[in-house]
């Protein structure tokens, strides 16, 4: 089954190429082709999920092919529970993004679909790559099509947003490249083996300062993507200006790559440095939580509001990651999934709303629940999930994170929990202004059609599933989380309970 990993990456890539070359001005064909490809991807991912046993140690699937042997670069893909679930999320969100754009994208469908599929390939590659250079390749590969998705199909200030998005992320990732190279040479000098192999690099001895600098190189790249305060300012612009599909991919997947990077690379590769850095990272996380929540309160633009709420939620993820304990890590990973489903659902809903109202400004909406009860109900469900309603997706993650944080520091947990209360304030305020109250205009509104209901139902089921029965997901996270915990030098394996 290992070869399926390569299929996961190359199928959308070749699909993108095919569509770009043959799909000119054939909108219908392009749509269905893209949808088919992404659905095949989804079924492959589901199949992998089905086959894999959560209890098996280490990686579930591995592909290892030499690529540039002279430089020690391999085509090394590996899928453990975490990447499995994130790939699953990716393959779920891409067909949804295609469906969402079905009518709202009016021009150049072939390019659009090609870019979307290329982004998918990049993101899946990021989640699978275990060779650092390969990882970097995919990391950049997902940026470029995303840039064009924003820059070509976005709203009024799309170019500004696209530049900002790209330049921020690319600066971060290039610094990561320096860190990767530094790690490579240090490892090479120590062992004589020059390789970018993740597994080999795990055993690099890094003295204090060097390790810290290298870790910071990685951290900056991931922090930009997550994004952490104070390098978040690309996100609201990008979210606001991106087309709906772009927002879905951005919020649902791209932000996750940052958190994934922390989990996969930052902590295991630089355990000592990460331990030293953890308080700062958690402080940044909590600042992000509160800052995002605070700013979300005063946004007029509904997409901007969700963007700031994303900053807040991703703050929880960082929070959880750096607790470095079972609850925190599980919570962070699960929150990544939950946030992916919830926020992309919100963006999808808001995109539909925007198609109908022609505005994203809250002040121009109001009273839309009665003409569009289905849309309103769906938005309510996702809003509730976003504010951590138990039984829905985000709750499980956020609560686990807070339970984990509490074990590290009660005051930080309190500060984080304030974020949950704050999320209730701004999200309900948003919902009330958009959906409740007097109707702002007496135009004829059209409620959701079948396609839109299909999209939102899929996401709603995911949200409920994650909230009510997360076991099928959590089981797969056990091994990765334990792996990360074991890499923590402060906690000797097996004495963890005594440590508490």
């Amino acid at each position, binding site marked *: 089954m290992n070869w399926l990993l390569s299929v996961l990456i190359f199928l959308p890539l070749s699909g993108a190429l095919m569509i770009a070359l043959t799909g000119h001005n054939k909108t219908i064909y392009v749509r269905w082709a893209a949808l088919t490809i992404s659905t095949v991807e989804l079924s492959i991912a589901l199949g992998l999920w089905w086959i894999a046993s959560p209890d098996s140690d280490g990686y579930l699937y591995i592909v290892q092919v030499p690529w540039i042997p002279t430089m020690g670069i391999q085509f090394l893909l590996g899928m453990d529970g975490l990447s499995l679930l994130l790939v699953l999320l990716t393959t779920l969100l891409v067909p949804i993004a295609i469906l969402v754009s079905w009518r709202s994208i009016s021009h150049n469908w072939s390019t659009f679909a090609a870019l979307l599929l290329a982004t998918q390939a990049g993101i899946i590659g990021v989640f699978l790559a275990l060779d650092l250079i390969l990882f970097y390749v995919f990391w950049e590969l997902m940026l470029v099509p995303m840039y064009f998705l924003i820059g070509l199909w976005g709203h009024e200030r799309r170019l500004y947003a696209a530049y900002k998005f790209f330049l921020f992320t690319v600066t971060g990732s290039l610094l990561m490249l320096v860190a990767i190279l530094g790690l490579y040479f240090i490892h090479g000098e120590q062992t004589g083996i020059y390789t970018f192999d993740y597994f080999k690099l795990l055993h690099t001895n890094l003295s204090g300062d060097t390790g810290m600098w290298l870790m910071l190189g990685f951290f900056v790249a991931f922090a930009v993507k997550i994004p952490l305060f104070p390098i978040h300012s690309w996100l609201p612009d990008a979210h606001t200006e991106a087309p709906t599909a772009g927002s879905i991919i951005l919020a649902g997947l791209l932000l996750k790559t940052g958190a994934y990077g922390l989990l996969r690379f930052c902590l295991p590769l630089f355990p000592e440095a990460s331990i030293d850095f953890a308080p700062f990272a958690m402080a940044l996380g909590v600042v992000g939580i509160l800052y995002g929540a605070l700013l979300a309160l005063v946004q007029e633009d509904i997409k901007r509001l969700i963007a700031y709420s994303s900053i807040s939620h991703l703050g929880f993820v960082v929070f959880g990651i750096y607790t470095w304990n079972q609850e925190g890590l599980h919570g962070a990973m699960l929150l990544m999934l939950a946030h992916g489903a919830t926020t992309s659902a919100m963006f999808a809903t808001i995109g539909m709303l925007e198609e109908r109202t022609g505005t994203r400004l809250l002040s121009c909406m109001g009273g839309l629940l009665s003409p569009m009860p289905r849309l309103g109900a769906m938005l309510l469900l996702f809003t509730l999930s976003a504010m951590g309603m138990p039984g829905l997706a985000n709750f499980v993650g956020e609560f686990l994170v807070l339970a984990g944080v509490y074990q590290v520091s009660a005051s930080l*947990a309190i500060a984080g929990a304030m974020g949950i209360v704050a999320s209730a304030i701004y999200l309900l305020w948003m919902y009330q202004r958009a959906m409740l109250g007097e109707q702002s205009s007496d135009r004829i509104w059209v409620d959701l059609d079948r396609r839109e209901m299909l999209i939102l139902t899929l996401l709603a089921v995911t949200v409920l599933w994650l909230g009510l029965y997360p076991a099928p997901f959590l089981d797969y996270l056990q091994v990765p989380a334990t792996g990360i915990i074991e890499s923590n030098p402060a906690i000797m394996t097996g004495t963890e309970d005594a440590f508490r």
Partner: protein
Amino acid sequence: MSQFLWLIPGSPMLGALIIALLGGYLKQRHFSILASCAAAVAFLTVLLAWLMGAATSQPLQQTLYTWIGVGNWMPTIGFTLDRLALVMVSVVSSIGLLIHIYSITFMAGDSDQRRYYFFLNLFLAGMLLLILADNLLLLYLGWELVGLCSFALIGFWYRDPLRASAGRKAFITTRIGDLSLALGIFLLFNEFNELSVSVLLANATVQWETGSQMPILAALLILGGAIGKSAQLPLQIWLPDAMAGPSPVSALIHAATMVTAGVYLIARTYPLFELAPQVQWSVAAIGTLTIIYGASAALAQNDIKRVLAYSTISQVGYMFLALGCGANALALLHLTTHAFFKALLFLTAGTMIRTNDNEHNIHNLGKRGNHSSLIRWCFLIGAASLAGFPIITAGFYSKEAILTATWSAPTGPLLWAFAAFGSLLTAVYIFRVYFFVFQGSRSGSPMPPIPAPMTWSLSILALASLVVGFVEFPEGWPGLHLWSDWLRDELGSASHPTLATAYSLQFIACVLPLIGIGVALVLVRREKLGFELPLAAFLRTGWNFDALYQIILIRPYFTLARFFKNVEALLIEGTLQKMTRSGMTVATACRDGLEYGVLNKSITGLLAGLRLGHMRLSATQNGLLSRYALMISAGAVFLLGYWLW
């Protein structure tokens, strides 16, 4: 039996699900029937549990699956039905069922019944879930779920922004309490690595010393959650506004069930409170203060539903008082009786409001005066029960028992005095309403007939308001003493005063409501003959109700009431408003200052710097050959300079 436990919260959940998913295929009136059936299934299951002997057996347990399994963090979807839970589910499911039935006609005209019944069923499910939960996290789920439904139902008529805001206010205020509960859960988990309630409590009693720091902290945090949900001081502000919802909702959520969730929570975790006597005492103190607060505020209201809302706040205060005195069983008893008579009062009020063109004002209701005798009797029974009219009402038994139990608690006489005073006030305010609305009502005008479902539910509630109390006669009296004996194993029992003291206390408790009724009668008379009052000038100018009741109230009460009103209006509301405003200011300042000012400006500054660099450099590129040559020579000189240096 235990394999059917899931049906209790499950059937309303299913009902909600069906309404949500298949609602498109159903007609408006089907929703009510469907929802009522779901509630009925839950009720029948509870009944079945009684019949199968759940009352005497070991707690029933059922675990469906592990909800979130991470290390020790293993909350299950699992239910425990012990006696405490049995009482609660009985109350909730029976009143829930009655209110569903009542709603069939009450909401018949509304065009959005799907949403109404969806949330009503969901609420019932959440409430039953929170009662039956065998671990704290599932309890928290139910806890939040009822909060959500409360939010949605308060704002049910969401086109009115005031109502929508009231819902939001309720949700956010209670969420502050929830935050405290969540932190409590984290603390307990962090200490014991366990979420199951029974195991936690057992561990706590073993590992923690009485009066040490951890149990105090834990109990305080849990108390915070309970205060928010139960609308106790200082988080009570949301409840009066919550009356914006339909009356059955007020009856179910904001009188009978949800607001008592805090009482349930404390009763459930009472071993923790026993480990923290200081906190236990503060529960009693909060209860006492709230009693006075609610009762005095109720005196000042003219909106019938607001009277009942403040009354609810005050009555829940009694339950807190009982909990604070360790009389958990009695708190539960009062919870039960209160649920019935308060639901009765709300439904009666709702019927009156509905038949009188949405008239909420008691004076106007009195003037219209076309109330059927059923309504009149039901309200009277409810009012009497609320006031604790001796012997014949259920309210008397529960409230008297609490008052007596208070005496022997720490600083008991003081608490008792306040509580007794509250009890007097209770009689005054509720009978003030009663006299205003019903005294001198002329039944001449035609009454709209009351539909059968309403009649039935009202009658059943009225009956229950009378008889439920007979399960526990006052101490030293002949008759049944089922309640405290039955619950003693689970909830412990409070210490009792000596029999002589008890008798005198009981006597006072009997007399107080009667005095109160008398005072109310006088009050209303004097109010109706307003010009006889010393402050008659005010009466004439003040048709507006604030001035009216301010003038006719007896001076100390009046001052007290105004004091509390002011406390609420100025201190709490004002503070909240100020906090909101300052939060907004901070947020705006953040946006303008930090986000736009520093962060964005640093970016634009960087861009401008780069642009300037570009311009400067570009200006050197002026096309002059000699300049080019000069640059080359300069470069050469520079490079050579490195060597010659």
